[in-house]
């Protein structure tokens, strides 16, 4: 890996962070009106006793946060200072809980659900797409292609709604929402784990189902072009077994570029899963974001957005750095 590449890629990653922080800082200030007055009146008007809000303390936190008396540059630098210390301020709806605490309670659920199901969708989808391009596969399988196209065209959360209706309301086979049975405490025994898995099945299924379609389609395209390469011909001439050619020549060469397109869809996966969490009231980042938007809990929204941008940016950064190590073609080009 060349030094230049490393520098350029690192630069892009840092720019992503700068941009995200700046957008978070600037947009509330660009929009006319006093956000504090606005929100506090809204809050006191809408909160009906349930979550009592300490308006005075919140207002103080607000003032301090925005430091509206200082110059814009100073405010901006202060904002950076806080962010670098992982201080995202307080939640408005659940004061005095900090935004950081609020997010870190939700994060593991999202990582578990979205991470696992994206991985499963990638594996199944890629395998399916590879098979669909393989000439020796029964024709009947190719009938799946239009179906895959339709499924890949459906946004994740709409699939979730359909799954809830069919499997929860009609068939009563799964719990409607949440991450574990309401009212129970989370335990790490067999029953506890089974309960968590049962609750995760439907949200995961909607992410996986919707994901498989697009992975399979792009993998199929990639595989078709790889199968036209000269090295596939030589592999046949060598007398290799079909399975070996499929896996080591076809799949291996198509999968690697497929990993880079993960970069393009990751944003789509994340936004899709935010809404899946909302539909299933799954207590992850997406649902937290939805609740924060509902209750105009602006700092939580900002914090989550920042976390999303930085973590996705970081994941892509790491992937771009690892990729040359696993694909000798790229390694050579950059050497």
């Amino acid at each position: 890996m060349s030094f230049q590449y490393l520098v350029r890629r690192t630069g892009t990653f840092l720019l992503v962070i700068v941009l995200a922080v700046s957008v978070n800082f600037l947009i509330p200030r660009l929009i006319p009106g006093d956000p504090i007055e606005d929100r506090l009146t809204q809050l006191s008007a809408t909160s009906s006793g349930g979550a009592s809000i300490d308006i005075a303390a919140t207002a103080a936190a607000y003032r301090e946060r925005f430091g509206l008396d200082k110059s814009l540059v100073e405010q901006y630098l202060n904002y950076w200072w806080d962010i670098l210390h992982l201080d995202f301020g307080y939640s408005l709806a659940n004061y005095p809980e900090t935004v950081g605490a609020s997010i870190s309670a939700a994060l593991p659920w999202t990582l578990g659900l979205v991470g696992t199901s994206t991985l499963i969708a990638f594996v199944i989808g890629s395998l399916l797409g590879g098979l669909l391009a393989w000439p020796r596969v029964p024709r009947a399988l190719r009938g799946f292609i239009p179906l895959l196209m339709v499924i890949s065209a459906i946004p994740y959360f709409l699939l979730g709604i359909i799954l809830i209706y069919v499997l929860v309301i009609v068939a009563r086979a799964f719990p409607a929402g949440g991450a574990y049975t309401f009212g129970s405490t989370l335990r790490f025994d067999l029953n506890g784990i089974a309960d968590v898995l049962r609750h995760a099945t439907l949200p995961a299924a909607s992410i996986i189902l919707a994901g498989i379609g697009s992975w399979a389609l792009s993998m199929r395209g990639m595989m078709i072009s790889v199968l036209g390469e000269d090295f596939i011909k030589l592999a046949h001439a060598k007398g290799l077994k079909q399975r070996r050619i499929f896996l080591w020549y076809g799949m291996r060469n198509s999968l690697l570029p497929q990993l880079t397109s993960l970069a393009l869809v990751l944003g789509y996966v994340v936004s899709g899963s935010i809404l899946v969490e909302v539909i299933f009231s799954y207590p992850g980042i997406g649902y937290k974001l939805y609740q924060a938007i509902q209750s105009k809990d602006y700092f939580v929204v900002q914090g989550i957005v920042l976390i999303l941008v930085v973590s996705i940016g970081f994941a892509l950064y790491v992937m771009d750095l690892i990729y040359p190590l696993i694909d000798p073609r790229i390694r050579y080009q950059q050497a």
Partner: protein
Amino acid sequence: MTTPVLRVQDLHVHYRTAAGPVKAVNGVSFDLAPGERLGLVGESGSGKTTMALALMRMLEQPARIEGGRVLLDGVDLLALSEEQMRRIRFDRLSMVPQGAMNSLNPVMRIRDQMIEIFNAHGRHPDKAERRERIGHLLERVGLKRDVADRYPHELSGGMKQRVCIAMAIALRPQVIIADEPTSALDVVVQRQVMETLGAVQKDLNAAVILVGHDMGLMAQFADRIGVMYAGRLVELAPVRQIFSAPQHPYTQMLIASIPSLEEKRLFKGIPGVAPSLLNPPSGCPFHPRCPAAFAPCPTINPALEETDAGRWVACHLHSEAVLHDSRA
């Protein structure tokens, strides 16, 4: 004459298209002796590459073998199951591919690409022995042993083609098909690669079918030359006679179109257009371009006949029967 190692009898290959079958190989027959070097020449579209693939049974849709026999040591390859054929590939009948630049799997080391040949044919299960064999093969084609640990992208075009040759001889095959093995290489490297191919062929006493359109290369390499035109073999003769006294008018034009054997080895075109294989001309497919065409040519397609010992030609000018008829 020794028993031929490979006999091709009346081979027909068609491409099935919406407009009808394209007869890419149309009744080709020839014998190949052990250790012999046969050159197959012809313009692009004459069916030579299709035939090379047909011998390996590696044609893809829409191409299909419609008839004929390919006997390797008396066994008809066209009658074997796909699994039986797989075992024969590279073991007894191997090939050096056309596209040297892209014929190796870019994400596998050379060593692994050679090991899998042994594995696929159940040879050299012992690790140390395998290692030794790979090192030996690479040295044989003029490469260093450590090339085995490189990826294809780290090798030059000539090195890649040498690796392909090393692979092709890995299982000591009886027949090697080389389909324009040097087309992607520059002239100096071409020569070296052909010398390497010749050397390993001699060691193994394997027969080689060299497919190409470069008459100069053929003249240097082949023992016998077969000339293909419109999916047919129109002349087959020892290399010296092909060059000194070509019989078929097409062969004559081919030879004439080489300015000088020593200076330039470029094959220049022949006036006229290559025939459509979908609707081939009636009679002899060459007659529309042939300067010597006469009465029977547009109607009767001449068969490949032996004119002298070891010399075969498909042309009415040299056919006993037709000459008799027209004289009478």
